């Protein structure tokens, strides 16, 4: 017996709490909450799991709570490897059964860290401590269907003649049912007037709580080269106008952009010359041999905000190497006070940028009242001198006589 007890003691010397390196893990958001879900509905949310620690982690992700059967994950792997000092996205998908009753439900996403299979466990005994995370899920099922979406972004690229123009659109479903956005794109000329060319698009279905990015291609057959605008509208009233160009075949490699138009002074007097500058960059793949700043001057009516063109300006031509940014300039001298809109664009190698503008404030010339003061002063002195002189009879001051005459007439 004594030998057995001793044997047991020796063995238990190995029963230790083993040291581990610091093990760190985080998840965001910490709570997943969906209101106004419907029976048979769907919702999803991306969790970001991260670690700033120095070890790779093996994670096990599982659902818990009363609604664990409604929850699934993407990726679907039973274990997820999270490399050291990294973050990874796990998509939590929630499918509401058709038989679910209205009410509030709770669930959990349980993220635990597994002991690494590659770790050396020889001689290890005792308790090993691992970090984990629990994300609460709060769901509210109602009978109310909510339909709606947001257009998060719209963009368009220049194209060459006879090639389609592409619109890239990102739409988010903000409701709790599947939606199919109805979009309409109309093409306008450089003066923003419709040219009778348009397209309707309603081919994308988007699940609730999700976003989708897609491309709409519109043929440009029959359209001349030049600058155009496109008006993108939706059945929910969204509206956005975008600029693009149709270029001659083979010139897409020639591309420049106008960043801004600015003045060296924005508060001036009439007849004071201002310098108009434009920052232009060569974003294409070819050398630009001529780039010139051109523009128009408008005077702004402060009451109605309308503009009236009063002149044009043009600067000297410059070359712009690949990848370079240059400042093009021109000059303008306002002749009268007022507020002016200076609208400029750059012509380069037969192409044209969009218009950018700035505002010039021309103050009235201050009136010099010195001469007025002098004249008034002289007149006042003369009058005073005259009125205080004696009359011809030498007995009365003139102002007394005038007053006396007035009273006698009265």
């Amino acid at each position: 017996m004594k030998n057995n007890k001793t044997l047991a003691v020796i063995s238990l010397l190995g029963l230790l709490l083993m040291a581990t390196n610091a093990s760190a893990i985080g998840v965001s958001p910490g709570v997943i909450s969906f209101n106004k879900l419907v029976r048979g509905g769907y919702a999803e949310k991306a969790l970001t799991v991260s670690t700033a620690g120095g070890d790779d982690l093996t994670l096990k992700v599982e659902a818990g709570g009363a609604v664990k059967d409604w929850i699934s994950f993407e990726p679907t792997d039973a274990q997820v490897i999270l490399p050291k000092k990294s973050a990874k996205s796990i998509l939590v998908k929630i499918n509401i059964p058709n038989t679910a009753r209205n009410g509030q439900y709770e669930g959990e996403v349980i993220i635990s860290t597994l002991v690494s299979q590659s770790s050396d466990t020889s001689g290890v005994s005792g308790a090993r401590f691992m970090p984990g995370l629990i994300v609460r899920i709060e769901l509210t099922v109602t009978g109310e269907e909510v339909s709606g979406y947001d257009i998060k972004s719209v963009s368009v690229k220049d194209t060459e003649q006879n090639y389609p123009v592409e619109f890239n659109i990102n739409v988010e479903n903000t409701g709790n049912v599947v939606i199919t956005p109805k979009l309409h794109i109309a093409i306008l000329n450089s003066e923003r007037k419709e040219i009778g060319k348009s397209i309707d698009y309603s081919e994308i279905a988007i699940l609730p709580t999700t976003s989708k990015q897609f491309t709409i291609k519109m043929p440009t057959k029959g359209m001349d080269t030049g600058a155009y605008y496109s008006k993108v509208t939706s059945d929910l009233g969204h509206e956005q106008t975008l600029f693009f160009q149709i270029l001659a075949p083979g010139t897409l490699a020639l591309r420049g952009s106008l960043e801004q138009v600015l003045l060296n002074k924005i508060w001036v007097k009439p007849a004071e010359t201002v310098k108009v500058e434009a920052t232009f960059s060569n974003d294409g793949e070819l050398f630009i041999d001529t780039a010139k700043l051109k523009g128009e001057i408008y005077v702004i009516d402060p009451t109605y905000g309308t503009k009236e063109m009063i002149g044009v300006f043009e600067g000297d031509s410059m070359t712009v190497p690949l990848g370079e940014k240059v400042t093009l300039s021109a000059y303008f001298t306002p002749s009268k006070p007022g507020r002016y809109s200076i609208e400029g664009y750059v012509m380069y190698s037969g192409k044209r940028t969009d218009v950018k503008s700035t505002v010039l404030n021309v103050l009235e010339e201050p009136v010099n009242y010195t001469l007025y003061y002098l004249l008034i002063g002289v007149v006042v002195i003369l009058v005073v001198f005259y009125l205080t002189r004696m009359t011809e009879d030498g007995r009365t001051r003139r102002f007394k006589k005038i007053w006396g005459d007035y009273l006698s007439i009265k």
Partner: protein
Amino acid sequence: MKHIKLPIDVVFGIFVLLTLSVFMASVILPVSTQAGVGGAAMNFSVINTAPTVGTVTCDHTVGSPSEATNFVAWCYAVITDLNGYQDVVACNGTFFRTSSGKAGTADDNIRYSNASCQLIGGSSNTVNCNCSFGMKYFADGGVSWTGNISTRDGTAVVAHNEGVIAGATLDALISIDLTSNKSQWGTLVVGTNTTFNTGNFTVVNNTGNVNVTIKVQAVDQLGQACDYMICIPSPANLTLGGTESGIRYSLAVGGAWSTGTVLTSSLVEIAGDWMDNRQAATPGKGENRSTYWAIGVPLGVNGTCTVIVNNFALGGSIN
């Protein structure tokens, strides 16, 4: 009929009064200016008008916040000035927890400021103000944050506007850093217990942006709930949760094994909401807590016994 002949003195006096009237009128009444060429003339004066700040939109960089990782939040707004975008000379911003208000020190927990935001993309009478804020990972999460953008024009006229962050709240980050020590217990005899001492403990540090609570659970190598320590070689495993055996924990040092809380295969909260995310102005760590572990060794156990203890963090109350 008597004709009244005005004396020349009176006539002269009237002339003087008329001259003075014209002078006074030119001072009091606004001066008309005429602008425009070749069209209808418009009469107006050019004066400085105050800038206005449009809708403020705020968000933070995609994929954040992450465990113990700082990130960037940003707010932007379109500023309009009828005197032209170049008359807008500066803009600055404050990003703050909505309930804490804009006024106060920028302390990295509830308030950040940027005294020189970027003015970009100016055209006609509008320019964009972009404010970025270097956020610490422990800035209060799960709550609403508001951005305030203020602008100034060339004559020092100031305007400002506010807007809440996209999604209404800064995402909550539940995050912990767990450290356990290596200890020597010395000679153990079956049928005896260890005490809660400074040689056997784990430390959990809050590296997130919300308060957390901790739940513990015994599991096996596959992460499945487990009621015993597996001992090799057998004959018997070490049962957890017994009155004379198993692992127990305590938040205090010095007590006997019997005073500790039993570790089982069930998820049990160690204590209430007990770990704050906020940190002092001097960089440091969020609140951390130590847990002490002791073991009771029953008769009949032999060999090398192991178990895994999961420490789960979940979101606690909001500061």
